[in-house]
């Protein structure tokens, strides 16, 4: 509408101006010249159509390139895996929007270093640059508006920015719609934080690191990063301490004692540098405090690791803290969720749903990376879990004084009850010679345990070896000799098959 009016005015004044110039007295002619000028001006102004500006000037490369980390070692398999996922997601119909590559794992396992190294190998494919942000701030959620500000400052230096998170996110997405930028989001807390920081362009990629597995929420598979192999761990130690292979014995001890955790390897490496490159003192110190972990040992000897574990621990509620601390009493390398019930003293009598509750608690501890997942438990069909050695040191330090003997007795009882139930269901004639100790204390009468477990599978026996060893003693003590012998025979069988297998 306006456009039509505008053009009518312009054309009319041009026509009137033209007519007046050619005829009439001088003042009218002058007025005609003015009108002509106005018409020209209006026409030129209207023609000044906004030029759609490309989001980024062709010459601008955003963000700085970080230098390669001199001490990065190993992880070749994971780098290859990330590369493969990246190539797969680049296929036309493989995903929608920017490519997202999440990495998750234990605190200090080297997620950020891997993300950085991978970003360096990808750099050439993102000619418009790289953006990097740490999504936490001393362990807190860093506000998205703040991170967006740092991104926008890189994309549009000197521009005045809106204050609200929504507006900044919208501007960020608009600016990156056609860009080819690689974004590294380090230490993300949840998927909501990530979602606001994803660039809009399908030619962008985002590498996300987080403790929790954000894959399911982000709709892509996340790379689970575990501690490195012993060889990679040794290579890391050599790199961070700048030592050669001479003290291999001590090097192995150090890497093993810190559970191959890169953050800890680096912290010990600092000490080795201070000691002038000698490995022995550091190894002996570790041996010293780990053989007798005092209340404050981890904090005093590896404060960086302590801080990371503590930051997760501090987010637990009271019940979960208690559960976490008590799990450090379990000696076997891995365990099943239900051991938490006898640890906490939840028996089947008043606690019908507690079985579920402890499963959920254990699962949540694992999601928070305070426990690590150790494969399937063939008896219950649930996940098995384990405590990283340094996390265990932490758990011991927060456990406080407890009556360990009594608590472990409860665990033994629960084990005996479980094995008894399973044997009764899977071995003909067992029950006749070995009547059930009524009533069941740790399992509900209708428990599905005997039904879903198929006897006592060999792998399960091996995974539970140390617990079952305790059970032999416990059954003997309780004068339940048949049970005692059954377990002992199973243990012997498993040792035999294991040694046969290794031969």
């Amino acid at each position, binding site marked *: 509408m306006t456009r039509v009016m505008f053009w009518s005015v312009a054309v009319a004044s041009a026509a009137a101006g033209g007519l007046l110039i050619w005829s009439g007295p001088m003042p009218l002619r*002058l007025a005609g010249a003015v009108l002509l000028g106005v018409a020209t001006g209006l026409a030129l102004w209207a023609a000044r159509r906004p030029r759609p500006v490309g989001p980024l000037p062709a010459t601008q490369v955003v963000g700085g390139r970080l230098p390669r980390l001199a001490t990065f070692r190993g992880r070749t398999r994971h780098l290859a895996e990330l590369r493969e996922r990246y190539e797969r997601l680049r296929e036309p119909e493989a995903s929608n929007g920017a490519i997202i590559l999440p990495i998750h794992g234990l605190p200090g396992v080297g997620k950020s270093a891997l993300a950085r190294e991978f970003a360096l190998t990808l750099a050439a494919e993102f000619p418009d640059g790289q953006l990097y942000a740490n999504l936490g701030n001393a362990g807190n959620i860093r506000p998205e508006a703040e991170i967006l500000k740092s991104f926008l400052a890189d994309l549009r230096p000197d521009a005045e920015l809106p204050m609200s998170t929504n507006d900044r996110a919208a501007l960020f997405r*608009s600016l990156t719609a056609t860009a080819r930028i690689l974004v590294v989001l380090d230490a993300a807390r949840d998927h909501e934080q990530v979602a606001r920081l994803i660039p809009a362009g399908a030619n962008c990629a985002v590498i996300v690191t987080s403790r929790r597995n954000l894959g399911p929420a982000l709709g892509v598979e996340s790379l689970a990063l575990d501690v490195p192999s012993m060889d990679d761990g040794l290579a890391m130690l050599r790199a961070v301490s700048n030592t050669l292979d001479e003290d291999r014995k001590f090097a192995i001890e150090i890497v093993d004692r810190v559970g191959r955790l890169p953050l800890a390897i680096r912290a010990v490496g600092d000490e080795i540098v201070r000691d002038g490159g000698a490995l022995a003192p550091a190894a002996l110190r570790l041996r010293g405090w780990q053989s007798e972990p005092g209340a404050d040992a981890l904090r005093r000897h590896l404060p960086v690791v302590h801080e990371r574990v503590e930051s997760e621990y501090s987010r637990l509620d009271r019940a979960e803290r208690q559960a976490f601390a008590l799990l450090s009493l379990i000696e076997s390398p891995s365990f099943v969720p239900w051991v938490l019930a006898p640890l906490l003293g939840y028996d089947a009598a008043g606690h019908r749903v507690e079985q579920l509750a402890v499963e959920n608690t254990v699962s949540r501890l694992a999601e928070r990376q305070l426990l690590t997942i150790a494969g399937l438990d063939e008896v219950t069909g649930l996940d098995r879990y384990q405590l990283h050695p340094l996390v265990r040191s932490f758990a011991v330090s927060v456990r406080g004084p407890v009556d360990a003997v009594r608590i472990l007795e409860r665990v033994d009882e629960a084990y005996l009850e479980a094995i008894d139930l399973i044997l009764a269901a899977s071995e003909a004639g067992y029950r006749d010679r070995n009547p059930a100790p009524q009533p069941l204390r740790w399992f509900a009468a209708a428990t599905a345990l005997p039904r*879903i477990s198929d006897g006592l599978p060999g792998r399960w026996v091996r995974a539970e070896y140390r617990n079952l060893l305790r059970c032999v003693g416990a059954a003997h003590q309780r004068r339940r000799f048949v049970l005692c012998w059954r377990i002992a025979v199973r243990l012997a069988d498993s040792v035999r098959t294991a040694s046969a297998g290794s031969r």
Partner: protein
Amino acid sequence: MTRPPERLRIVPVRATALVLVIVVSVVAVAAIERDGWQAFAAALAGFLVAVAGPAVVSRGGLRPAGYVAPSNLPPPPTHLTGREAEVAELQAYLEDAVQRRRVANLHGVAGIGKTALAVYTAHRAAPKFKAGELFARFVPETPAGDAIVAVRRRFIAALSPAGTVVPDSPWRQAVMYRRLLRRLGEDNQLLIVLDDVTGAALVRPLLPRTRWCAVVITSRNRLDDLPGKDFDLGRLEPAAALQMLAAIVGNARIVAEQGAARQLVRAAAYHPLAIQLVGMALANRPNSRLDVALGRMARGGGGREGTFDNALDLAYSMLTSGEQDALVALGLLDRRNFAHWELAALLGEVVLDGEAFEYSLRLTGVGLLERHSVDAVGVQEFRLLEHVERYARRRAGDRYDDTERAAATARLDAAREGRSTQQVDLADVFETEQQTLDKGNISRAFKNTRDAVALARDCGDREAAAEATAMLAELHAELGGLEDVRDLLASLPVEYPLPHVRALRIRAKLHRRQRQLDDARRLLAAASDLCRATPNPSEEIRLLRERAIVESLGAHPAAGLPLIREARDRAEAEAGQRRQLPALAYAESRVLIALDQLDEAEWVLRHGAQDAEQQQQELSRSWIGYEQAQVARHRGQHEQVLELALDALNRFGGMRHRYGSAHCREIIGRVLAVDDPDSAVRFLAEALETFHNCGDAWVEATAAERLGEVQAERGYIAEAVDLWRAAEQLYESIERSAASARARERLTRVRQHLAAHHTAVLGGGT
């Protein structure tokens, strides 16, 4: 989907204009022939008026230098399984510009995946919409009028160049909005997505009256009286539902337990969001058998087969008991948006504020809530998802009897009342959290300060909000921040003297770190003047301290001595100021080191360390440790430097204080450079990385410069040159933003390095 780069094309309007200009010029030339210069001058004047007039008007900013087409859609779901037909149909409809008005109304029950479909399709159609894509979500509790104004405001801002002032009056907004939409055309089309719409009245004022704009509306029920087409969204086909679950939990698990998987998706009522929730819960237990999970679902829930609630039962049964209690309590809320303290109030005495916050974060993590922070202050708000709200209400109905419900609601009302009438003590938030910070509880200081901002905002106490925001800036500055600190200070109101003084001092600190000493001095002088009008001993001592540090970096460090001594005397004499002594010892040592009085510095630091330990000020203790390492370095006692700096490094590491850690690494690297350049490289590189991420350009440049020197010594000339270039750029940027003699000096030095090695590289030597 990507948009192809802009192609050159003939714009009809421009062509017409060109023709017109030519015609007019011919006429004007003819006029000059006849009437001479008068007619020419008149035509020129008219021309200028016509061009300049609109140009003046357009300076208000309707249009654009530097305008970017908005692309405001949220990120699309990575996969959208089982909706291929719907996507194709919707996309075809949106792209079909022959329609007179393209308005697609997507409706279906909560959790059926309307938003996902809308966003997914919008992304796919985006390349056809050159004018951009706009997205807005309506919050149900907002009154319709406010919601329309807010959304329209955002749309206008998005369609206008940066800095455009959007009028407040709804009527003028409407005019502006219409005018902007009139700019659309066949090759300049716009796509709008309006999410979670509760009534046609909400969207009608936003619907453009042009055929060059397509609109997608999602709503729970079909909206009446809207132009365009309806899309009724139903549940997924069983096969697609299974495929979706497989995408989340991994195909292997589905293949291994086909039967259980089928039962799971059936139990999830084939609702995409329900399957998403079930999948997220299962993905965290990667080895658990699906049939076991199914059993849990039956035990945890009520067995309402085939309903959405049933699917939520599985998600619910996989929550810990604390999280379950939290979710049920949220069912008592009267609205979907809430803050964590409201949850704490509903849960009563048994749950602490901090725990309620964690529960809210966890429910967000499992996909039951949304989390949002409105600005850089970072106060978190939570929101129950539409389908979860109903579920929580039902659970709350089952669990609470009338008295319990009344008690919880009363607690909530009391908490709200308490906040809005300031029964909570906000005085001295700055000093309190400063002490939390001094003790090294950085994380807690952040959390408390954010809570204080939220509280101050709720009770309308602008001064307390300013104080808390100033503290937040202080915290960021402590961690080496630059842009983030400026951002926070920019939002600070200037009418309250005390927070204003603090803001000036913090700004000065940023300048001091960039060695822009004149600016720092100017700001500190202004702050001192202000402080005279409203005396505040703590802040006065801090100002003296900051001034002393500035002088320690300048040409006459001795000028810092009287300042820091005055500060120390006051801190010793005045009540409650002894807690500043450790921080003052640190500053005094900086002055003394600059004056090369190392013995005095050592003495001061030893006492400072004692004070810090007595008062359990872990943060001050760490900085003092770092400073002790500096003294040792100036004395050339390298082993002691390593010992002291490593101790400080551990202290900073224990607080997750990256900036402090990086300083320690830097000094270790400098000392190692003498005998052990390989290790030095590692420490300096790690320091450089941290500084790069903090935003403190000066230390980053220093670290890069030094690392370059070590690399050059080791013979890695290419790396050295790269690092020096980086340092050069950083010094240049510091020098550009404000005069800094030190930056100039450093710049010259780096350029000398570069020049020297440039010849070396060309000459073939290393």
